[in-house]
């Protein structure tokens, strides 16, 4: 089922009753293709959870429409939308067993949708099998680990075969090891069921690793939509560039003069098609090449060994971050001369942003 949002807006009255309304979701327009896994990504307070609530139907939009397929579901209560939702804290009923928790949504069905006990049981088993929790069916949630609870919550959301599956920060309550495992699990379940899935997260790594498409938000406004790699390689503004990637992108102040980019007085790169102006320069950590004649000079700090790669920590007055991090292959030898280290830059890893608007300035390549 594809999901379409049209001019979706949600305003909240300001808490102290003065000033303007808070706009949690500002004029959203996007279409989620059928059967995809979508990551809704942004820092806390960016309105991503509100957006999820709107799609779920727990909150009503102030303006705009939501379509599931061709059906307008804007004014439908959640139970009539055919959504499954996994809450951040799972919201498993503590007094019910795993089995009872999973069966619970089925017992709510009325009229001709009503199911027999056996049918419900079969459905529940099917869902349990999908998330691999059959051995725990008669336990209570408190007797399960966080990861297992998460699976139960997913099973409960899936048991009614929803048209859309929603997950609110599905990994935030898990420890690091489980997180890795569970996100692969979510991917697997989504691939098997082919249900359109939207999940919310503030962790860019999480979103990038499993999503077909990510939506980056900031203060209620969509910044960029696209495949994870595309968004990473081609950010539309400084915010998106900074938000995606670990270690984060290195930001410098620079100047463009005569289609050449200068950082800290040195000419570092050709930037064809860019007019003369002050800019922010974002350079991905992997965009540096160690080169003894390289145009980009920085003060050497330290080398951190990461095994496959090494990370060079260095400093520059033009840097917006306190340190500069560059990641290079560990076969390279780092030999600073008089505390100075020189880099050449990979042009596709260097992004320019307007100093005023922080919007991307595109370089005309392959002219």
């Amino acid at each position, binding site marked *: 089922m594809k999901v379409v949002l049209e001019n979706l807006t949600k305003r909240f009255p300001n808490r102290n009753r003065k000033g303007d309304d808070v706009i949690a979701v500002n004029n959203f327009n996007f279409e989620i293709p059928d059967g995809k896994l979508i990551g809704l990504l942004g820092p806390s307070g960016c309105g991503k959870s509100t957006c999820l609530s709107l799609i779920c139907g727990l909150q009503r939009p102030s303006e705009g429409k939501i379509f599931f397929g061709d*059906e307008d579901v804007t004014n*439908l209560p959640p139970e009539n939308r055919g959504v499954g939702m996994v809450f951040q804290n799972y919201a498993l009923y503590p007094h019910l067993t795993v089995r009872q928790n999973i069966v619970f949504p089925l017992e709510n069905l009325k009229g001709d949708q009503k199911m027999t006990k056996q049918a419900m049981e079969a459905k529940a088993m099917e869902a349990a099998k999908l998330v691999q929790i059959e051995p725990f069916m008669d336990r209570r949630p408190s007797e399960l680990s966080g990861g297992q609870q998460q699976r139960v919550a997913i099973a409960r959301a899936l048991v009614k075969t929803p048209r859309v599956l929603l997950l609110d920060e599905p990994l935030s309550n898990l420890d690091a090891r489980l997180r890795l495992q569970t996100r692969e699990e979510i991917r697997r379940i989504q691939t098997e069921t082919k249900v359109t899935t939207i999940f919310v997260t503030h962790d860019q790594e999480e979103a990038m690793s499993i999503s077909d498409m990510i939506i980056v938000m900031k203060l209620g406004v969509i910044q960029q939509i696209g495949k994870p790699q595309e968004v990473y390689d081609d950010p539309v503004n400084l915010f998106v560039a900074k938000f995606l990637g670990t270690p984060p992108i290195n930001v410098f102040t620079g100047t463009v003069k005569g289609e050449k980019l200068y950082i800290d007085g040195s000419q570092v790169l050709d930037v064809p098609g860019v007019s003369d102006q002050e800019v922010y320069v974002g350079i991905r950590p992997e965009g540096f090449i160690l080169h003894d004649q390289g145009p980009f000079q920085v003060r050497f700090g330290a080398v951190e060994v990461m095994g496959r790669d090494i990370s060079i920590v260095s400093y520059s007055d033009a840097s917006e971050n306190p340190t500069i991090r560059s990641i290079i292959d560990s076969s390279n030898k780092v030999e600073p001369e008089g505390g100075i280290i020189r880099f050449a830059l990979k042009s596709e890893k260097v992004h320019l942003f307007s100093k005023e608007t922080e919007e991307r300035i595109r370089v005309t390549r392959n002219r």
Partner: protein
Amino acid sequence: MDNSYDQIKKNASARTRALNIAVYVLLGFWALMVLFPFYWMILTSIKSYSEYSSEWVPKLYSASPTFQNYVDAFTTVNLSRYFLNTLIFTLITTGAMIIVITLAAYAFARLEFRGKDLLFTLFLSLMMIPNELVIITNFQTITNAGLRNTFTGLILPSITSVFYIYLLRENFLQVPDELYYAAKVDGTSDLKYLFKVMLPICRPTLITIIILKVIECWNSYVWPRLITDDEAYYLVSNGIQEIRQNGFGRENVPAMMAAVVAISVPLIVLFLIFRKKIMAGVSRGGIKG
């Protein structure tokens, strides 16, 4: 298609509205149940005796409000005496209790001594003992000591409360140990540490306990009734019972109501001032007893 959505939406909102109205009717009804006796007592207290007794069907307003009943309540019977007694009783009992339980709670929370756990368990098990069981002997004890119709006799048995010791100890335990060691390094004595550090930190709990105890004292009836038969030592509860039986003449209801209002006002005022604190305190461990 669109119609059915509208229908669902309309039905849902109609049902919500009906439920909402039912909810407010229910709450309003109970509010009326609670408030009406208060309204009634205030209303009756400002009716003159003749106005009140001429109404075969009592009116819900007063044609000629008067404060004479309040004057009567404080002059004809000894209401001011009862007030004063209750005030003395409440202040001394609460004050003495706070000292006793603070010391005990501090010993349990902070000091080390042999048999601490055993003693604390014994204390806790005393919480289960109902007052009715021990009051008989206490009555004998106080009577034999010749303390009937004295404040000492009234106050002594209610100076300790195992429950409040427990409550305060729990709170004391939450004060980080480091503060104690820091104070010890600075050469602070235990007593000084207790009064200068522990008590200020645990003030909210202390206030809760004080308020609960004050309410308890103000309303206490059974023990005072057993231990006093001299009007000079009556507390308000006994006073109201006395007024009812022998006071203004059984029929002078307005004067009785004036006394009732006068007795009820202090606690209600206290409640309205410390509303949040009292309600939080009661939900933590106040059972009207």
